């Protein structure tokens, strides 16, 4: 009887699979990405490498010495002082202390400051507060500091914002009204993001991170690209654009950037527009399917990200939080899965960072 190995499903729980079954899942996952993204699947040597990772009995695996990459940190200190909605562990630290803990206790290469709401819009009325915190952080830390927040166009739609909500308008077949609301939201979001980020640059900020870009669809992505463009023209901020999902949802459907339709783009096409806008780092996302094995999910994620790395001229820091980038959808991610995903992204996809 063939030996069986423990392999996690996308929701994190273990099942047992033979090596042949694992290999079949790897191939199926990679071919799913190749089919959807019109990209190349992994080759035999890459399947062999992944199979070795999944059959390796070690609890934690790592890249070879010298292959390490730079880590950037979406969500910043919320994982320390936040609630479980962000996998936070509820330690009552200031954000300055949280950043120092990451720099000196977790050996972070970079770190991020963010508001507890983690969206750009609510930061606007409290920008002076955020500037003061950032000033103190910049005086007392050494690593590059990002300010991170989500474009979150949802906050510009009723009941939270001034414009009609496309999610209400579309089911009523009010297509034109839904599109107009999104176009207006883009204008306001760009204005807010540029205003806040410029204020952070003014007090000495290194970099900003547009996190979960595209969460509200193609308009969300468009707003971010225009904000990047304006900020690169007017400040010296380094800019990271991290995505919300692997595929740009066509909530509007007709929006374009520099002649390219945004709806339906996968990571290897998204990065070309992010690069054109002037961003310095791109963070692709590949979502985890909870009903598939992590062999299927990791092979699929690595296939998409490898194509993205090859298409890019800027550093790629793949998003690898829970539920993306080959990690299970579980708020306290199992370290065996996380470390295997790390190794696969570095050794096969050749990412520049995580």
């Amino acid at each position: 009887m063939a030996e069986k190995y423990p392999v996690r499903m996308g929701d994190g729980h273990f099942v047992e699979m033979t090596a042949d079954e694992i290999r079949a899942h790897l191939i199926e996952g990679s071919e799913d990405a190749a089919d959807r993204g019109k990209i190349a699947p992994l080759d035999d040597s890459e399947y062999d490498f992944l199979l070795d990772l999944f059959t390796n009995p070690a609890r934690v695996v790592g890249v070879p010495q010298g292959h390490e990459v730079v880590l950037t940190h979406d969500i910043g200190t919320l994982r320390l002082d936040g609630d479980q909605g962000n996998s936070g562990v509820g330690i009552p630290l200031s954000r300055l202390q949280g950043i120092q803990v990451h720099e000196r206790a977790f050996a972070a290469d970079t770190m991020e400051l963010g508001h507890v709401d983690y969206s750009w819009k609510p930061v606007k009325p409290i920008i002076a507060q955020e500037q003061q915190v950032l000033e103190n952080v910049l005086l007392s830390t050494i690593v590059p500091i990002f300010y991170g927040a989500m474009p979150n166009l949802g906050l510009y739609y009723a009941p939270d914002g001034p414009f009609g909500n496309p999610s209400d308008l579309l089911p009523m077949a009010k297509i034109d009204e839904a599109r107009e609301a999104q176009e207006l939201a883009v204008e306001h979001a760009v204005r807010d993001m540029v205003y806040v980020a410029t204020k952070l640059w003014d007090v000495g900020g290194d970099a900003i991170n547009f996190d979960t870009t595209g969460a509200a669809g193609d308009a969300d992505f468009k707003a971010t690209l225009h904000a990047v463009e304006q900020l690169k023209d007017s400040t010296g901020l380094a800019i990271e654009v991290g995505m919300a999902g692997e595929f740009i949802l066509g909530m509007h459907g007709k929006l374009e950037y520099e002649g390219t339709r945004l709806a339906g783009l996968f990571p290897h096409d998204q990065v070309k527009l992010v690069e054109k806008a002037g961003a310095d780092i791109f963070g692709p996302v590949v979502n985890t399917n909870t009903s598939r094995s992590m062999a299927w999910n990791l092979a699929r994620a690595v296939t998409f990200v490898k194509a993205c790395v090859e298409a890019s001229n800027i550093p790629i820091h793949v998003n690898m939080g829970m539920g993306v980038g080959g990690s299970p959808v579980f708020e306290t991610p199992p370290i065996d899965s996380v470390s295997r995903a790390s190794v696969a992204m570095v050794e096969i996809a050749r990412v520049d960072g995580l």
Partner: protein
Amino acid sequence: MGVGDPYGMPIAHGVAAGMGGIRTAGDLVARMQLAQKMRISEAKAFVADKLRISVQDLSDVTVMREIREDLDIGVITSVPGCAKGIEAKARIADLLGIKINSVERLKRKLSGPTRD
């Protein structure tokens, strides 16, 4: 990376594949990615050349600890007298030949208006 508790996310990724921040040369390599959009190999080669060490040494704590002390660019443990925070960043900007915004701000403050 992204959402996850500290042990399951930054610590796990750091152990598996991270450069090691100011324990090693992680912050320096990150600076070059931010300042000049360098891919990882180019950024490592650039920093290694500046430090006159091999690329592999960049993430070796036994090599980098001594180099960081010698260059006074900040170390991870609390050592009295070693450059801290903005002091270390000012020296890193000189070492790498880049501008760091907070350091530029400090320079402007130091050369600001007086009543003389």
